């Protein structure tokens, strides 16, 4: 069967689900960031797919900007993870739970 818009949507939906699953289950902060990346890419994939099948180049432009944004976010996130590591000698997000009720 030919690859059409629905297939792309399914893949991006899967990506989204995987990304969220990764964030929710992985204890390691870096792994969670990877999950975030997956979620972002799902969105971008969608955009490109709609642009391709829906006509208009806006989607493509949006995707480009999206990629840059994802990168910027990754940088900042990793810097913070570094800082957390330096503060508590581990990147385990579960251990970073001093702030609670």
């Amino acid at each position: 069967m030919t690859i059409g818009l629905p297939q792309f949507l399914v893949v991006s939906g899967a990506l989204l689900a995987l990304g969220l699953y990764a964030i929710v289950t992985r204890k390691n902060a870096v792994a969670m960031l990877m999950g975030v990346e997956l979620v972002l890419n799902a969105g971008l994939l969608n955009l490109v797919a709609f642009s391709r099948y829906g006509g208009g180049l806006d989607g493509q432009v949006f995707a480009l900007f999206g990629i840059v944004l994802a990168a910027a976010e990754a940088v900042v996130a990793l810097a913070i993870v570094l800082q957390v590591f330096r503060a508590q000698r581990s990147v385990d997000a579960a251990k970073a739970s001093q702030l609670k009720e």
Partner: protein
Amino acid sequence: MVSNLLAIGPELALTATIVLVLMADLAIGPRRARRATLLTLSVAGLAAAAAAFALLPEGPTAAFGGLVSGDGLGVFFRGLFLVAAFFGIAFGALSDEVPEGRFGEFSALLLSTTLGMCFLVQAQNLLMILLALELTSLPSYVLAGFRRGDRRSSEAALKYVIYGAAASGLMLYGFSLLYGLAGTLDLARIGPALAAKAASGSVAVRAGIALAALLSLAGFGYKVAAVPFHQWCPDVYEGAPTPVTAFLSVGPKAAGVAALIRFVVVGFGASAASVPAGGLPWPVLLGVLAMATMTLGNLAAIPQDNVKRLLAYSSIAHAGYLLMGVAVGTPDAIRAVAVYAPIYLLMNLGAFLAVLAVRARTGSESIADYRGLGGRAPLLSVCLAVFLFSLTGLPPLAGFIGKFYLFASVLNAGTPFFYVVAIVGVLNSVVSLFYYARLVKAMFLEASPEAAPAIPLPVPATALLAVLAIPTLVLGIWWSPLADLAARAAGIAG
């Protein structure tokens, strides 16, 4: 071309200031008064940005091909953000949590957040919204973790970054679906397109629209800290340095609300008065969201004994009140939100300033250490009492006027559902008295523990306190200038 540049004059000034501050930070050696010069530089930049307002082209002109709309709502909130930035930086200068050496970074980051907020408020295009949201969020992640050595600050930053990234990821996914369905990124044209699709489309399409709209709501919800998306707020507010918390509770929250207004009203043309486009019952949805946010914020604040956490929940509650106005969506309601936002800014910043001063002297944030403050720091405690009672919404203080506008617009919305919202809102202000009065009780009605030190206020802090307290009192009695300003905010480019 020139008119486009002029349209974003203030933003340009801000950008220039950021660059200058960074370069000055490098240029100034360790010995000279780093903090003072950088402070004056930043304030000068803000002043320049404020001056740039005068150059704005008349009337609501969309610049950069519809990316940015210079309408009344945008102008009003941009002015508000400049004020918020000024106080944020001033608090940073005062607080000991921002070391002398890194004050440059602090103000640069803060100004860039302000830049992001200014764009967020005007963004008329999905892409622009996402960009502005990210520009607002990223520097604030770093600001949240500003105290490098402290575990709690870095933990706050970590939570903030992961939660923020996830939320904006969802929003991006929502936007992509919206783009898919509507075929355009421009908010103004999305509404009609969706309406057409919803009218003709099958149930699946309508479900798609709902999914798209609600997922994009996640982004705004996270920024405003509305109920399902609020869980990051208490931890980050407690962990972050107090000046940052103060700024976060005022600046980005207001930007989120303004952006939500534009997204819902312009994007979906939804307001209590008109039939919602795209079949989404926005007023009821946002109404439920508002009620949930208010109730959770007020109830959770009661058992708190850490003042910053208490103010965190209180700011969630106030986000609920603002959402009530957004839910109604009529020009009256938007004007009410525009009136409430600055008053909320004054009260909240005032409260945080007091917390800052007490923390600077006693190093603690627990209510127990506020016992007998009335005796030890009379001026500070009286001002804090004024802010707290204004937050509750008691006349003759400004808080009452804000709430009065909001409830008036909600009651005037006409549909019976909003009477329920009004009653829940009113009951919430009564419950809010529970915890605000607990703090006041600690300060005035209980004796101070023996070893409690007196808390003298440094002169600049007293000045700032006065700058915040006096309008809270005056606006309670004579608020017509604010009302006129806010009236312009209601003029949204349709």
